[in-house]
């Protein structure tokens, strides 16, 4: 029988759907009977969701203005983008500036 203590260690596996069918049933059975563990799981979910809703931190205006200038310059130079990409563009992850 799954204990509350064990459950607090596997709540993320449960939330992420990374659990065998039987293990999941065990967790759901436990949660169905255990109010504190339901509260614990809700709080874990709430913590994660609240992190996602923290007020945004916009970029400092001077840096943003500088970037927008570069962006505008590139767009102007690039009004007609090439239809075929040059071969070195296969590496999406590492465009050197």
């Amino acid at each position, binding site marked *: 029988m799954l*204990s*509350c*203590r064990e459950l*607090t*260690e596997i709540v*993320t*596996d*449960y*939330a*992420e*759907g990374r659990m065998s069918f039987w293990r999941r049933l065990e967790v759901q059975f436990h*949660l169905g009977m255990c*109010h*504190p563990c*339901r*509260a*614990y*799981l*809700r*709080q*874990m*979910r*709430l*913590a*994660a*969701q*609240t*992190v*996602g*809703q*923290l*007020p*945004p*931190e*916009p*970029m*400092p205006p001077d*840096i*943003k203005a*500088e*970037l*927008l200038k*570069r*962006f*505008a310059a*590139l767009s*102007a130079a*690039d*009004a007609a*983008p*090439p239809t075929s*990409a*040059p071969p070195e*563009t*296969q590496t*999406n*992850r*590492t*465009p050197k*500036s």
Partner: protein
Amino acid sequence: MRAYYAVTTRPPSSTPDDDLALLARLRGGDAQAFATLVDRHHGPMVRLAQVFVRDRAAAEDAVQETWIGVIAGLPRFEPRARLKTWIYGILVNQARSRARRDGRDVPFSALVEADGDVAAAVDAARFKAGGHWASPPADWVQDTPESLLATRGAAEVIGAAIDALPPAQRAVLTLRDLEGATSEEVCNILEISEINQRVLLHRARTRVRAALEQFLQKK
């Protein structure tokens, strides 16, 4: 039941279709689209860069360099990857090369290994011998993100809890919960396994929840 309890109910912040539309606007020189993109990602990007570099100023430099790289790379970007994954991939490269210049290069895998957080999710003293709660978590009056964030001081407590996380946990939580990336995207950006990603996420969320619990008890 699963949907009700799932922690990760947040949808991805954009779909590949959104990516294509955004990409078209960016390539068309839409400055407003670019400004919105920059602002939306600034906070998470600075936090992620700080995992690698010396201080906030160096992190902001890395973010700026990243956008310069993004602007330069936009005409050549091929939407096989998600736009977000591409941008964060550049950021990790920029932050790491900045760290190297400052003489403190640490590969992310080393940070993962150094994450010696073996603490139990919940203090053992809160359980009885059989593993059942002796000191169970109290129900929170604030049971939505909105009501939590409307509580004076809660946002600061969460921010401080994130800042206090060990680097590898901070990186994963920043990408998953602050940025809204999927576990697959996080694994690609940080080049870690799904299991490592999940373990780090678990430890990080556990600490943020504990910080909130402590804060709400004192209210």
